[in-house]
């Protein structure tokens, strides 16, 4: 079994940095009037899931979610569950030609999986409360997913690795 330690370290650093940013600095880009903040960690988890597959996605999702749960003081295991399932599903977008890591395909993947992640999280979070699920969808799930997707557009403008020609990977 070939373990790619380099990849593990890189992913771990990426997730730690994003968890730190998510907990400490996300208010820089939060829309406080709408009570909206983007989920930066799910973007990274989707990237990992799409790039490395279902198992990697699920494991990283579980660890990152658990860490955020511990730090948030909310329901322990809720984000872990949401991230695990979401990053696992992201693994289904893994293709041999990295089609879903290319620009707008990635954005579509982020939106779809972000909806799923928020669906699990908020669906369980508001269980037992009198708030209607439709309201949860309209006020939390869709706005939060949309904002996360908008933030993930940054990925499309990031410089790509030299010599890594993706021109053949058109979205069409």
């Amino acid at each position, binding site marked *: 079994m070939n373990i790619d330690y380099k990849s593990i370290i890189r992913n771990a650093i990426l997730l730690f940095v994003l968890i730190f940013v998510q907990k400490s600095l996300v208010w*820089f880009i939060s829309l406080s009037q709408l009570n909206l903040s983007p989920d930066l960690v799910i973007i990274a988890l989707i990237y990992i899931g799409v790039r490395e597959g279902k198992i990697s996605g*699920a494991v990283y999702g*579980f660890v990152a979610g*658990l860490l955020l*749960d511990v730090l948030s003081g909310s329901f322990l295991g809720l984000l872990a*569950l949401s991230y*695990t399932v979401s990053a*696992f599903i992201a*693994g289904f977008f893994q293709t041999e030609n990295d089609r879903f890591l290319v620009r707008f395909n990635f954005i579509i993947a982020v939106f779809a999986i972000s909806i799923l992640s928020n669906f699990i999280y908020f669906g369980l979070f508001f269980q037992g409360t009198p708030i209607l699920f439709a309201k949860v969808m309209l006020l939390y799930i869709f706005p939060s997913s949309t904002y996360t997707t908008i933030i993930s557009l940054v990925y499309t403008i990031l410089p790509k690795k030299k010599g890594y020609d993706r021109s053949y990977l058109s979205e069409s």
Partner: protein
Amino acid sequence: MKKLGQLILNIKEYLILSVLIVFSLAFLFSNDNTQVRFLRAVAVGMFGTVQSGISSIPNVFELQQENKMLRENNIRLSNEVSGLKESKLENIRLTRSLSFKESTGLGLVSANVVNKSLIQTRNTITLNVGENDSVYINMPVITDAGLVGRIVSTSKNYSIAQILLNKDLRVTVKVQRSRVDGILSYDGVSSLTATNIPKNADVVVGDVIITSEYSNLFPSGLPIGTVTETGNLDNLFKKIEITPLVNFLSLENVFVLKYLVNKERYFLEKSYQSPKK
């Protein structure tokens, strides 16, 4: 056995997912455990140390919003303070007026100045009381400081009063200390002067000028002003400058004195001064 191994290998992804989901659910159902609380306390403590350094970074957007909110609050509070100050001043004014009204034995009608002119030679004030309030022409207008003027025109609910700073108003006055008589008039520019005072009369700066009993328009003894300058008008008379006690610039509340001209005296004096041909 080999088939079982192969099967497990085929579904290993789902097995791992199931295990992780079970772990997540286990955590979810054990949220109030002592171990979980301890774990949280340690993690939050460590993270809080790092976060405290970050918290000093100002959030520009929130600061802008906070600034806006503070500015709005500031304006609202300023308006409130301004209103309270106004109420306080009004309270002082009304209390003073009320005590004056109670102290004087004369019938008074309280009035607010609703309009005034101070820059003309014939200055007047408009009051919000009229004939419906038993206010009639020639009634004196006063404040607790002294004489203001007299009513010259009335309607049902309003009246106009000539003030001391009006060329048409002449008042017979007296120096309170030395009882020297004179006639007070406005020069139309800036000052009140008392004339018809003999050159050798005892008048000094600071003397208080009051209405004289010779006046048929005003009751005697109403304070008018203080002498600020004395000089000679010609070889026979003095010219005395007087500063009114009433501050006409800030005049807001006055009283109309229910005092009317003594008609018998008025007609007698008039008939003597201009006998029928």
